[in-house]
């Protein structure tokens, strides 16, 4: 069972190499991608069941014991994230195959996508801060390629911003690592957790804040979010969906992991996180309301939703962190689904600009259903998964006596609903626009030039989107067991002793 921990990283990497070798045969590449990601999903499920029953699994790469060698740690939080990421990666890959856009045209799509999967898995599993940097770089390098695949003018423009910002964040991470190594002489997270207790608290706070800024850029929290709504919408739909669902959440994962594990209770920047969370929610949702392009609206909502997760962490209570974990699970599924639906809307009407779409409820009723369920879920309408997630966070906030933040979350939920209704009213109600009649009206989609190849198979895309919608309903139906699982994961995060003991003294 221990050996399985390394497989979610190794399998996609090996498959990526194989996929490059089979570059000429697109069907073989598809087969490799789907089989690999299915295997990763199965392995992650097995790991989750095992870790939940038995406890934390640790792998020491090369057999070197913990503070010296590279450590992979599978605890509940890591494995939950691993499983949900694997499911999303698989679903979006199938969607991309159905869409036949970038996936069809570029040899590099499949190998890069698999490298992205490996990077995401490694960032969840690593127990070593420097290795986390490497994981981020693997993931980001793949994301640079995927984001600029096709090399259209606006992709290059936004790609530059994205690459420069990410590179700066990575450099800042390196600087933080240098400081941490200079103060403690280790980069192993479990070892750091022990040694940082003896460091003067001022120094500790500085390190905690530096790491918070680094991961804050990756997670797109206020005031470090500005790159996201600009760069995400220009990528091919499938790529945007997987970025929206996973990449920022890897940043959130890193924030939660480092702030709970590394730093003792007296250095935790709780109030700061709560303020940042509230402002992130408000700014994100206001940005979303101002937009009139489906993908840009959804991109701003990512920023807004990140605030909820940070709020759960900022409470630093069992209920708060459990709520944050549950929120992440719900958010990854729902957000990815919404972007997939946005892709279907563009396929249907040739544009993502709200002005150019209309009447989809008449012409594509199933699409309307597929949009409505995740949209209401995002806004937190009962009985969908968003309601359960928000309820958990609100209760945690009330228990902690943070009434202002709770008030903000409720207000932001209403605004979220408002902007979802804006999409609904414009795209699904009203007069149908005939897409074939004027596909290239002057203002048609400067952001979202239709990149859809005529041979795409909407049926497969609809099926995948439908499956994800069913999954999000499943989250709501099985909210009880899932929340208890999140609570156990949160308990692991709060009681760091078990983590450090398992890693350092196996």
């Amino acid at each position, binding site marked *: 069972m221990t050996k399985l921990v390394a497989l979610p990283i190794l399998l996609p990497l090996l498959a990526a190499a194989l996929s490059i070798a089979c570059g000429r045969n697109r069907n073989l590449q598809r087969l490799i991608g789907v089989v690999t990601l299915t295997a990763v999903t199965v392995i992650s499920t097995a790991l989750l069941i095992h870790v939940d029953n038995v406890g934390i699994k640790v792998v020491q790469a090369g057999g070197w014991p913990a503070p010296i060698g590279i450590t992979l740690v599978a605890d509940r939080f890591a494995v939950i994230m691993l499983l949900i990421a694997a499911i999303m990666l698989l679903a979006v890959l199938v969607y991309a195959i159905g869409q036949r856009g970038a996936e069809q045209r570029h040899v590099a799509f499949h190998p890069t996508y698999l490298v992205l999967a490996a990077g995401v898995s490694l960032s969840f599993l690593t127990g070593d801060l420097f290795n986390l940097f490497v994981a981020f770089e693997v993931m980001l390098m793949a994301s640079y390629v995927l984001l600029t695949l096709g090399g259209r003018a606006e992709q290059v423009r936004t790609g530059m911003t994205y690459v420069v910002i990410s590179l700066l964040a990575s450099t800042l991470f390196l600087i933080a690592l240098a400081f941490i190594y200079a103060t403690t002489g280790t980069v192993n997270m479990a070892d750091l957790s022990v040694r940082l207790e003896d460091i003067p608290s001022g120094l500790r706070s500085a390190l905690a804040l530096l790491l918070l800024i680094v991961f804050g850029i990756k997670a797109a929290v206020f005031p470090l979010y500005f790159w996201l709504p600009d760069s995400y919408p220009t990528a091919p739909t499938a790529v945007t969906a997987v970025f929206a669902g996973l990449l920022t959440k890897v940043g959130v994962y890193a924030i939660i992991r480092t702030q709970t594990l590394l730093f003792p209770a007296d250095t935790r920047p709780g109030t700061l996180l709560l303020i940042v969370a509230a402002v992130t929610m408000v700014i994100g949702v206001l940005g979303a309301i101002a937009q009139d392009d489906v993908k840009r609206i959804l991109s701003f909502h990512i920023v807004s939703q990140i605030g909820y997760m940070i709020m759960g962490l900022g409470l630093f209570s069992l209920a708060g962190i459990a709520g944050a974990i549950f929120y992440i699970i719900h958010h990854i599924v729902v957000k990815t689904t919404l972007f997939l639906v946005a892709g279907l809307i563009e396929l249907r009407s040739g544009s993502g600009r709200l002005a150019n779409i209309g009447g989809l409820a008449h012409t594509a009723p199933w699409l309307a259903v597929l949009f409505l369920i995740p949209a209401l879920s995002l806004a937190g309408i009962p009985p969908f998964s968003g309601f359960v997630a928000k309820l958990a966070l609100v209760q945690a906030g009330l228990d902690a006596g943070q009434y202002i933040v709770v008030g903000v979350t409720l207000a932001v939920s209403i605004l979220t609903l408002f902007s979802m209704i804006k999409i609904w009213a414009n795209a699904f109600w009203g007069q149908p626009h005939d897409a074939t009649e004027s596909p290239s009206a002057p*203002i048609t989609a400067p952001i979202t030039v239709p990149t859809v190849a005529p041979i795409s198979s909407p049926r497969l895309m609809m099926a995948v989107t439908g499956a994800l919608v069913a999954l999000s309903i499943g989250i709501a139906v099985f909210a009880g067991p899932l929340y208890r699982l999140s609570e156990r994961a949160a308990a692991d995060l709060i009681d760091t002793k078990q983590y450090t003991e398992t890693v350092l003294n196996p």
Partner: protein
Amino acid sequence: MTTLLAVIAAVLCGCGTYLILQRQLSRIVVGVSLIGHGAVVLLIGSGGGRGDPVFVGGELRSFTDPLPQALALTAIVITFGVIAFLLALAYLSWIITNDDDVEDDLEDRFVARGLRRRDDMVPADDLLSGNREVE
């Protein structure tokens, strides 16, 4: 020795920050790589002072800490790869727009023009062509 490294890192990061704030993509690329070098120098500096070479002679206690050097090497390789990609992207941008400047965000330009109604908008192609002062 460590102080010297810290000063070097500070100068590199300072120059890099200045360059990043420029409008030309080529300067930004140079700036980003300077900051990257600064970070690597800091990593080297984090290993403490000078010591004996590892594995060849010397006392066990007087070795230079080899770990930061391994970390620095990894960081150099990664930064090198990303900078190469960035250069390729900057070159592509130059080919497309015939211009080395960073362009404004499209929505920024819409807002700056104070366009209220979509009907009045200049065709999007003009805005995308890199011609920042259309009108």
